[in-house]
């Protein structure tokens, strides 16, 4: 379990570190004076989130059904 949590902590750390960089850089995109940059920003954020959402929802549904059927069983 330890490796798993360690891995996730590192990933989380990286993402957290990356976010301020992006945010900080984002005024730069506005100074490009091109609204199209705005379009890509939104699209990137949306598309980045979706695979995780879809995987989470579908995986969660399946997991819920399995857990409800056998609360104690290891799948």
């Amino acid at each position, binding site marked *: 379990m330890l490796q798993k949590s360690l891995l996730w902590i590192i990933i989380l750390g990286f993402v957290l570190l990356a976010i301020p960089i992006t945010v900080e850089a984002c005024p*730069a995109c506005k100074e490009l004076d091109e609204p199209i940059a705005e379009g890509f920003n939104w699209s990137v954020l949306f598309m980045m989130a979706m695979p995780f959402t879809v995987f989470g929802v579908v995986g969660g549904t399946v997991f819920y059904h399995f857990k409800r059927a056998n609360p104690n069983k290891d799948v």
Partner: protein
Amino acid sequence: MDIWLPENVSTFGQGVDNLFILIYWITLIAFILVTATLIAFLILYRHRPGHKATYIEGSTKLEITWTTATTVIVFGLALLSYPQWNRIKSPTELPPADVVVEVSAKQFNWDMTYPGPDGEFDTEDDLQLENQLHVPVDKIVHIRLTSVDVIHSFFVPNLRLKQDTLPNRFITVWFEATKPGRFEIPCAELCGFQHSGMLGYLTVHSQADYDAWKAERWPPQ
């Protein structure tokens, strides 16, 4: 690497090269370590009569060690490259221009437009050149890149500069050449059947030569 990398003639090129060389050493050491370990293991633990494998399922301590080590190294590399990247590409850190040239890519040529004596584009005194880019040495040059048809890529190996050109959009890149000379500007993005051979030339003049060239070419006011 110096024998492989073409001569660098831009101010920011050394930064790129340094990062390249740093990564080169890091990856070389990593490669040698891993390969040496691999070969050593292959020899040491080859199958011999009477020799039995040891049951080892893994080691959390080791996993943590190498996970942390790699993370530190790659993150260190990332940190080192932020300033270089911003210096070259960030529009907020664009140094003020001494010379501005508009480069419009088309199948299969580079159209260079100089603003002419009045310093404004889209006026009558603009100077149009095909595949020839002339700039003075030690001066900051802004290139306004665009394209009339498909995506091309403005690549000057000696400047360590590459930027795709997009139709109907302007992207400004900059460079400051440190040495006079004639350098090639290939197109680095597939742009059609004559992509190979789409080639321009960058001529870096000394200030005096550049003034002479200007006097000769630029239409009188």
